[in-house]
């Protein structure tokens, strides 16, 4: 399994053609307490860079973009009941959705963990 990061502060963990997507610890720290999450429905078709989910905190509402194109296999139902998971475990139980990747080559431009850390340090 390999984990990639985007400049929009999302992570995607890839296992063959399936992947899990969430927002990074840096993103949750900037948002503050998350109060609401809307995840995509199973079967929804996502395009790379297009709107995939919505996250709302006490400070702001933000779109979450899909790091790659694909078809949603599952939205994280736990976030509906407990949006705080995004704050406590952003890169674990606070994942947003899983999808089947349409085109693996879209992963090429994404950052690995070290590169993302460098990117965040530069902000």
């Amino acid at each position, binding site marked *: 399994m390999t984990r990639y990061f985007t400049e929009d502060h999302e992570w995607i963990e890839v296992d063959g053609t399936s992947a899990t997507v969430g927002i990074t610890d840096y993103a949750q720290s900037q948002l503050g*307490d998350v*109060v*609401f999450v809307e995840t995509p429905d199973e079967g929804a078709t996502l395009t790379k860079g297009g709107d995939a989910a919505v996250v709302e905190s*006490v*400070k*702001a509402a933000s779109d979450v973009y899909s790091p790659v194109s694909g078809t949603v296999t599952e939205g994280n139902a736990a976030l509906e009941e407990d*949006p*705080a998971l995004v704050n406590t475990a952003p890169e674990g139980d606070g994942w947003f959705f899983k999808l089947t990747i349409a085109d693996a080559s879209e992963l090429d431009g994404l950052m690995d963990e070290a590169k993302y850390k460098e990117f965040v340090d530069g902000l």
Partner: protein
Amino acid sequence: MNAPNQSGWKPTSPVAGTADGANTVTGNKALMLEEPLIFEIGNCETTGVDLPEPDLSSNRLGGFERDAEIGLPGLSEPETVRHYTRLSRQNYAIDLGLFPLGSCTMKHNPRVNEKVARMPGFADVHPLQPVDTVQGALGVINELAQWLCKLTGMPGVAMTPKAGAHGELCGILCIRAALEAKGDAREVILVPESAHGTNPATAAFAGYRVENIPATAEGRVDLAALKARLGPDVAGVMITNPNTCGLFERDMKAISDAVHAAGGYVYCDGANFNAIVGRVRPGDLGVDAMHINLHKTFSTPHGGGGPGSGPVVLSEALCPYGPLPFSEFHADGTLTLVEEETAGERHPHSFGRMSAFHGQMGMFTRALAYILSHGADGLRQVAGDAVLNANYILRSLEDALDAPFGASGPCMHEALFSDKGFAEGMTTLDLAKGLIDEGYHPMTMYFPLVVHGAMLIEPTETESKAGLDQFIAALRSLAERARAGDETLKAAPIHAPRRRLDETLAARKPVLTWSEPEVAPGEPSLSEQGGS
């Protein structure tokens, strides 16, 4: 009377007790009275009105009679009056003090407006009255419309939209109708980062895909990025000018020209028009549609005090598509309303209606009273004083608070600060809570999003220098505490009726309806205990 707040569900401070440790039996603090919910003090058995027992022996409800108590609280007249008066004392309003909410223009609502709006000829008319009996009211709509056209340099105006976002929708629907009339379906509306948050929502609601245009380092629209994105799929742009960074978009004319050259239209969010009224005509800048918040620029009450009103001025290109109804002035001095019956002949391309009737009549009379009492020169001074007051705050505090666009020149009607320089762990929220202790409504915070920990302060022109000086002194003291890491600021507000509320819990688990608290078996329930 019951002990106040006995159900105990209302939010209280995590820090128990009052600042000086003295609690009273009643929960009241001198003349600040602790007030329970009306459901906690009233009950079904009490009533303030003597009504004869109704005859329920026969009815035509067909078995749908209520078979349980309705659960509405009953109170005597003095109890009712006191309840709402006590609650109103815990409110903060523009009539109590400075209300520095950036982007909201909480200016004084002159009392002459109220006097005029209460005149029976305006206050007691009905929208379905025969037109020849409401010539005066139609005259007000028409005269206000002419002023709005003149002040904006635009040929037409739709008066019916009920508020800013409603006006945005009206403008975008005009753009959609104009494009569809040309058989030119476009899909994208461009919205800069510094626009009002309602703009992308409006575009999406009208069926467009929204794309962001970045801001430059000095806080204005990136003209080059905008031009690069324009093309045959772009229906238009929505620009807030002055923008939410408190800056005038100097490239507005160039933006409009580029958008028009690409076949699109320009929507301007006119919420901040009070900064430029009497000085800049948006029509001269190439704007095709702009809403005017009568409840901001033209001083009609809002924010709990009254409804909004958002007329939309339209360019020559969009006028034919404006909504019904509108008032039409005739050579003989009479006015008629153009509605669906005559629209086929008078206004055939209208996209439809924004509201059932003519708009917010009560706000029209107030806004016209404001305009006429100020005159053209007075309105020009409104803009000048609004900008002067905001710059006075910006320059008085820029050594104590970080002003991210302080170097971009004078601000317009609002001053923007960031949380840069605060000690570790201190936030904009802490400073805002401290302002409550100082007796002010907090400023707009965490907006615009382009600035970290944003504090957006709009004093408006109706504050005196002495009033601004006191506010500046309060804010300076709070800024110094935030920079020094004064932990006591984390406990603010300590003087408010409620201490720091758990806003996260309130958002995650909102309690929106009252239900009678569960009581132990054998104990009388709240409503059985009686109200007084």
